[in-house]
Each structure stands twice: as C-alpha cells, then as structure tokens.
C-alpha cells in the first residue's frame, strides 16, 4: 500500500518533500496506527452498546433505545458525558500513581495490536517474536490495576487490586501453558505463520479448513484458553475484581470522568484483543472454514480467505463473552483460584505431553 501512497504524497508536497523524507517512516507508521486504532475504538464503543442490547434481549428487556435510531448514538452520548464529568483526585491518594494507573491500563491494551495480523500482510509489525510480545505486553496490563488500587488509598480499590493481581497472574499461567501446544504444532512464534500452519492438513486440502484449525486437535487447550481469556479480562463470571455487590467497583471506585473511562476502554479493548488472539491461535484467523464453497457463483466470494472471516470469528467470540455474562452467576474467589491452579495447570501440562507424544508417533497430523 505504501507504494501507492508514496508517489501521491511526493506529488502533493512537491518542493517540501525533501524536508519530510527523513521522518516519512515515522509518519507512515503513525498513519497505519491510526488506521488500526480508529476501527478498534469504534468497535469498543459499539461493543458496549451491543453488550447492553444483547443482555437486555436475554433478560426480555429492550436495552438502550432512546438516543438516536434504535439507540445507536448511546455510546457517543456516554463518551461525551464522561468527557464533561469532573476528574477527582482524592486527598488520600498518591496523585502521580493515581494518574499512572489508568494510563498503564490502556497503553498495553492498545499497544498489543501492533503485532496482530488481520489478513495476510495486514499487520503493523510482522515480528518473529509476536507471541512473546503479546504475552509480555498483556502482563503489563495488570500493573495498571495494581497501581490504581494502591494509589487510591481506599479499602475497596485495595481489595480489588489484591484480587486482580492474584487472579490475572494465575490465569496467565494457564494461558501461557495452553499456548505451548499451539506453538508445538505451528513451529513458529510469528502470528502470521501460526495462522498459515492451520491452512495445511487433510481437511484443508478438501476445502473443509474448519476441521484443520487448532481448535479440534487441541480442543481442551481451546477451552482452557477461552475460559482463561474471560478470567484474564476480569469479565463475568470471573468479575470478583470489580464485583459490584461486594467491593462496589474494585480498583475503579475512586476514579471519575475520563480517568474512569480509560479503565473502561482498556477492559473492552482487552476483550477484543483476546477474541483476536483466540481467532488467530485456535480458529484459523482469516482462513475460510468452507473453502470448497468458493466455486459457487456470486456468493462463493464470501467463502474465500480474508479479513471478513477474522472479523466474523472475533464477533462470535465477543458474543460468547456477553452471553456467559448474561447467563452465569459470579464465581466465588476460592473457586476461581481452584479452577486456575488445580484444574487448568495440570490439564495443560498433561496435554503438552499428549501432543508431544502424538507428534513423535507416525500418527502425527502435523508433518
């Protein structure tokens, strides 16, 4: 794409071009970042709207329907409202850390998107250590919550931060161990290549790619990863971190206005990130599930590989997030920790062994 834009920009700037040339890579990177961030933030806004609608329907309510047609302008009204709300700095709080908290929550939630491929070649930084980067940057998010809870110098945020730190690091272990099996069968840490590895196999050859993706041979790991993803983002039924009936809103109690909005944005951006990562690791990213249907005239185009499948898979996983929020009651904290440490960790360790032995035998499906 750069090849198309570059001559146009050169012509537009004319004599000014030599002055711009040294910083062009930076400008071009910023343009691409804006192209990633604006749809992402729009998705975040409409995910909150969709969540309220879906949960409304599931509880036989209407959901927001007053602002704009079908309530479609509701998230924009919410955002504007938060913008004009007073930003409070409690007397007891540590002011510097109090501001640092929300910044540390949102920055990694956005920066993680740097390595996410949306379609072949549609990636900001196609790095070989993509999985490592994702794991590292998503670990930083927990610091935002801990810093916020500590800086608030108030009891509920403190409890929220304690719970968040233990819960998020516990599920990070099961997420990481679950990913090991994906890496074993993909033979790469590069996210584009991990998707590419899922396009091979017996079923993919027949045009039935959906059975060649990692979710089927690694089904227990897919379940572990998805459930850990819900726990990692502190969503219901694992939302004891902000459990409103016990500790009001956890680490966010003392925040207001835009400072609160940052935590809110980070939570939803993280949900979308987890759905993108699950699609890439287990559901074949942008690969089409039924490639053989491409031969049908007209509608066949929809069954070719492309970004639309990535978007569809992410939307399906996000719907799953909302669905379980409307369905399940909140877990008790000791149950959450038991699930993470006493069920998921042994399960993932055993499955690493199973996949290892499977790949050693002649029965291996990953050649």
């Amino acid at each position, binding site marked *: 794409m750069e090849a198309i834009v570059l001559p146009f920009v050169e012509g537009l700037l004319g004599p000014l071009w030599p002055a711009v040339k040294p910083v062009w890579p930076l400008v071009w990177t910023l343009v691409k970042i804006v192209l990633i961030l604006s749809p992402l933030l729009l998705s975040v806004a409409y995910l909150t709207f969709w969540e309220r609608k879906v949960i409304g329907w599931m509880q036989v309510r209407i959901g927001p329907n007053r602002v704009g047609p079908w309530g479609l302008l509701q998230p924009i009204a919410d955002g504007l409202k938060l913008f004009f709300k007073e930003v409070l700095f409690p007397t007891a709080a540590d002011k510097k850390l109090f501001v640092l908290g929300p910044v540390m929550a949102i920055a990694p939630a956005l920066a993680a998107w740097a390595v996410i491929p949306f379609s072949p070649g549609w990636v900001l930084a196609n790095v070989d250590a993509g999985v490592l980067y994702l794991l590292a940057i998503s670990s930083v998010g927990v610091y935002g919550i801990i810093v916020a809870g500590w800086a608030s110098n108030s009891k*509920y945020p403190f409890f929220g931060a304690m719970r968040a730190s233990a819960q998020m690091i516990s599920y990070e272990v099961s997420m990481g161990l679950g990913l090991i099996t994906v890496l074993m069968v993909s033979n790469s840490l590069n996210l584009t290549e991990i998707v590419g590895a899922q396009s091979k196999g017996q079923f993919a050859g027949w045009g039935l790619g959906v059975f060649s993706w990692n979710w089927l041979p690694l089904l227990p790991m897919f379940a572990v990863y998805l459930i850990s993803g819900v726990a990692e983002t502190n969503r219901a039924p694992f939302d004891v971190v902000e459990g409103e009936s016990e500790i009001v809103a956890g680490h966010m109690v003392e925040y207001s206005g835009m400072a609160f909005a940052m935590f809110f944005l980070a939570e939803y951006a993280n949900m979308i990130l987890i759905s993108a990562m699950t699609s890439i690791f287990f559901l074949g990213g942008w690969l089409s599930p039924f490639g053989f249907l491409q031969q049908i005239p007209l509608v066949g185009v929809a069954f070719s590989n492309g970004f639309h499948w990535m978007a569809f898979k992410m939307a399906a996983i996000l719907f799953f997030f909302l669905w379980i929020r409307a369905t399940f009651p909140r877990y008790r904290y000791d149950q959450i920790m038991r699930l993470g440490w006493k069920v998921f960790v042994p399960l993932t360790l055993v499955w690493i062994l199973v996949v290892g032995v499977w790949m050693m035998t002649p029965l291996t499906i990953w050649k």
Partner: protein
Amino acid sequence: MLDNYFPILVFVLVGLAFGCVPILLGWLIAPNRPDSEKLSAFECGFAPFEDARMKFDVRYYLIAILFILFDLEIAFLFPWAAIFKEIVNTEAVKMFGFVEMFVFIGILVVGYVYAWAKGALDWE
C-alpha cells in the same frame, strides 16, 4: 531486523499518549469543584476508618511466587515448543529433545505437587 520493532515502539508511545491526553483534556474541560467530602475515600457513605493499606493475606504473596516459577517455566518452554517440529523431524535429537524437556517439566511438577500437598493452592 530491529527495524521491524520500530512500529511497536511508536505504538507503545501512542498508547501512552492515548492514556494521558483524554485525562488531561477531561481535567481541563470538565468543571472542577472539589470539596472535602467529595475527595474523601469512598466507604459506602461511612466516614473512612483505619488506614486503607492494611495487612493482607499471605496467600496472595504465595500465588505471586508460584506465578514467577511457572512463568519462567513457560519462558523456557517457548523456544523449545517453537522448534519442536524440527526436533521431531531430526532423527539424531528426536528422543533427546523430547525426553529432556519432560524431565524439566517433571522437576517442576514435583514442586507443584509439593505446593499442592502443603496447601499453598487452597483458598478456604
């Protein structure tokens, strides 16, 4: 090679800016009328009592230590997992590459079982 990582650095900086700018704007644009009640710690309407930074359960600390061990383990497993297919396809190191890593995992499992038996994973 390192050029690939330049956009990531820019993205991290953009992310940080994205966190700071709206808070700054909100602070500048929104009304600012603090009073002592508004700025006191929230405790469901009661006046806050005691210091908020109190003693906490040692189990949170235990979990953090266990996490460091397991996360290190994962960090060691990553490079092995990323080339496992090549290990399997190379006859000379096939068995060695397989067994060696499971000896490594086995040592960690011994510690894990010990932690479980000692009750470090219980939250009753």
